[in-house]
């Protein structure tokens, strides 16, 4: 068993300050409009890290920005093209990453490694330190217990924090985490037997307090065996409003498109921006024909999460964060879908 340490809550701020020296710090912050977002913190003294609410968006966009210039080009007077890669990766500490978002990041690691490593993604990824935070109380639409990605994901983090009330239990994960613990050892005390028991009790309580009862395993089985009625798909297609919100908030939706955008007569940029497989334009051909109907594009999104990825990677690419449940106004979010599959 790996070691565990205790950090007094009073020392959280100074610890975070130390480890983010020379780095960008990203942590959940609730803004004046009441929205909790993973935000860049420039001044720790005037900003409160929010460990109580679920951030409304995942950390996806820090690694795969909604719009990102990946290459610039210029044409010389002689008509010669010059290209230069734009690789950006600022050293960044992510604090308070929820299990679902961490699971999403681990999934993106897989996606952006195959067939070759995506340099734009990994430049950012390799410059990041991930400090996760276990969820003592699942939020309204969470079902990470059913996707086996939370509420306390046991791997993938550099450090994992568990909120034990007046103190944090801190566990190292990857090598960088251990190094941080060694470098800043003076912040920590060894965790006692009781601390570990408290953590165990918290985890048990958290697992039993999910408000959503989602039968992911059953749905996976039925989808694998193609036991899903046609009416399920048709009903989804009728309700989907084609807004793409589900894909945008999803921690594992990574479809993108590439456009070349001229900046001036002789210069321009290649931009990578988010796309979604539910959009008609994702598959429509130049002549106007679309080989994939709206019913099928929606079908593909759900099958990708719950069938194809299961056969490829042995796990769903839904991390149970429940964000699409909150954002979907057609009522075709993944929980409704899974329920419909189970009932069909």
């Amino acid at each position, binding site marked *: 068993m790996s070691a565990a340490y205790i950090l007094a809550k009073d020392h959280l701020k100074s610890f975070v300050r130390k480890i983010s020296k020379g780095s960008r710090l990203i942590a959940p912050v609730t803004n004046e409009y009441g929205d909790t977002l993973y935000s860049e913190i420039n001044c720790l003294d005037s900003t409160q890290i929010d460990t109580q609410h679920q951030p409304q968006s995942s950390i996806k966009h820090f690694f795969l920005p909604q719009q990102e210039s990946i290459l610039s080009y210029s044409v010389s007077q002689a008509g010669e093209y010059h290209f230069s890669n734009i690789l950006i990766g600022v050293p960044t500490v992510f604090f308070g990453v929820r299990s679902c978002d961490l699971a999403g990041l681990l999934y993106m690691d897989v996606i952006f490694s195959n067939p070759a490593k995506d340099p734009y993604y990994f430049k950012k990824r390799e410059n990041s330190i991930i400090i996760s935070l276990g969820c003592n109380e699942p939020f309204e639409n969470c079902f990470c217990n059913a996707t086996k990605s939370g509420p306390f994901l046991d791997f993938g983090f550099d450090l994992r924090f568990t909120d034990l009330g007046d103190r944090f239990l801190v566990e190292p994960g990857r090598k960088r985490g251990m190094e941080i613990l060694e470098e800043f050892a003076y912040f920590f005390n060894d965790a006692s037997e009781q601390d570990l028991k408290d953590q165990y009790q918290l985890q048990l309580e958290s697992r039993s307090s999910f408000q959503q009862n989602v039968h992911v395993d059953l749905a996976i089985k039925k989808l694998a065996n193609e036991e899903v009625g046609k009416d399920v798909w048709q009903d989804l297609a*009728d309700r989907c*409003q084609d807004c793409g919100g589900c894909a945008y908030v999803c921690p594992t939706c990574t479809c993108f498109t590439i*456009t070349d955008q001229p900046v001036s007569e002789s210069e321009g940029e290649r931009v990578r921006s988010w*796309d979604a497989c539910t*959009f008609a*334009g994702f598959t*429509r051909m130049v002549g*106007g024909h679309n080989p994939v109907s709206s019913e099928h594009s929606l079908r593909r999104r759900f099958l990708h999460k719950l069938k194809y990825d299961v056969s490829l990677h042995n796990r769903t690419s839904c991390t149970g964060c429940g964000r699409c449940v909150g954002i979907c*106004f057609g*009522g075709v979010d993944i929980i409704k879908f899974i329920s419909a599959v189970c009932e069909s």
Partner: protein
Amino acid sequence: MAGLATTFGSGAMTNSISEIEQADVIIVSGSNTTEAHPQIARRIIDAVDGSAGLIVIDPRKTDISKFASVHLQIRPGTDIPLLNCIMRIILDENLVDDVFIEMRTENYVVLRDMLYRLDLDETAAETGVSLEKIRRAAKLFGRAHKGVFCYCLGITQHICGTDNVRSIANLAMLTGNVEKQDTGVDPLRGQNNVQGACDMGALPNVFPGYQGVADPTAREKFSRAWKSELSDKPGLTLLDMTHKSRENGLHAMFIMGENPMLSDPVQDKVKETFDSLEFLAVADIFLTETARCAHVVFPAASFAEKSGTFTNSERRVQHVRQAIEPIGDSRTDSEIITDLSAGMGYAMAYDNPAEIMEEIAMLTPLYGGMHHDRLNENWGLQWPCPDRNHPGTPYLHKHSFTRGKGLFQPASHQEPGEPPDEQYPFKLMTGRVYHHYHTGAMTRASHLLSRECPRALLEINPEDADRLGVRDGEYVTLSTRRGNITICTKITDRVQPGMLYTSFHFHEAPVNKLTIGSVDPTAKCPEYKICAARLERIQS
């Protein structure tokens, strides 16, 4: 707006949007809700999931009609006969709310007598919907405890738009579906702030808050506040300006955030007007087709670059706050107006938008308690909100109509301004698509939205397409008595035979080159929804 203002005394959505979810039966008429008001469609679908009945009245098979218990696919422009049929059946079935009619309304006898004179079979035949289907809808709505009627431009953009609205109001009053929570009549407003624009007096005959220019007390109040003599004559309506500037002695125009070159009917006439003006100034965030006609263009700031308020469909005044500094030379609308005004010798010195809001609150009873500091909580306030302590008004006409008693105003069928004939055999309707907003000035600049919907599509029924030998995706010439455009076809049974449908977002296929200049005589709203058209294949 005129329709509701004369029946109820107030021309706005009577409900809050969230109340729609609580209704037993919802009628949606002339509204492509999932595409034009997706957030309202969501409430309607939720209500249907919770076992509410849904009646959709639309000539087209819209997406929302898939959720309907009854879809009344009427012939375009036959809303009044349909509503009269429904009311007559409700009367015959004794589903009228006698107590409500007695206590809360007036002029009922006139409506009743008109309905009794109606020949049901004949009237139903006019609509093209079977009487049996209408009967089902009528009974469903008549028996509802909480009935909501949502309508949109498919009702108002007709030559009989005001009478259409009055008929809807008649039905709501007949069944007692106003003045109570979760019941009401809801015109769905299109733009984020079209309600606010009306509230602020962007109408020919009123000052802010619907205080008539003809009312000496109101005029006196505004004259004192603005320290200048104000006219008691109503201004010009839209088409009186963009079609008939010369007749009306108009020499100069200042257009803000509007693109009449694409959005007003009969484009050629609009162009002629703009060309003939001595001076045209346009303020917009992009160089629109209208801005290209202008002598002076003011680059305006976008929503993210300014602070102020927007008033949405449910009369909710919401505070928006500047997120970024204005880019380039762009300036906020209020800066443009106040500087222009100062340059013309009338100083308008406001430190910030909150100060303007204070003036609005002082002069406009509906907004009396709306101050910026109050709007930051709970997503703003719904008018009427007469004073600082007032919590706002979720639904209108509680216990009593604004005008006192609701006024029944019976109406009968009116032919469209230009019915189809041998030369122009199709009825052409216009509307919107999900991915684009109005004339596309903003949405067509978005790569993704443009990709989702790259071109205007003319919907045509397979029967008509077969007869004319038109293939799906073929470019055809669409013409009316006003002109012609080239447009791509989409063969679909969403439209009935004899009908054509397209949207007005695309400057390459400007359908408003074709639409007719006739207007509703009361509201002066153009008849965008029907004109006679002809379709021809392009000979290569």
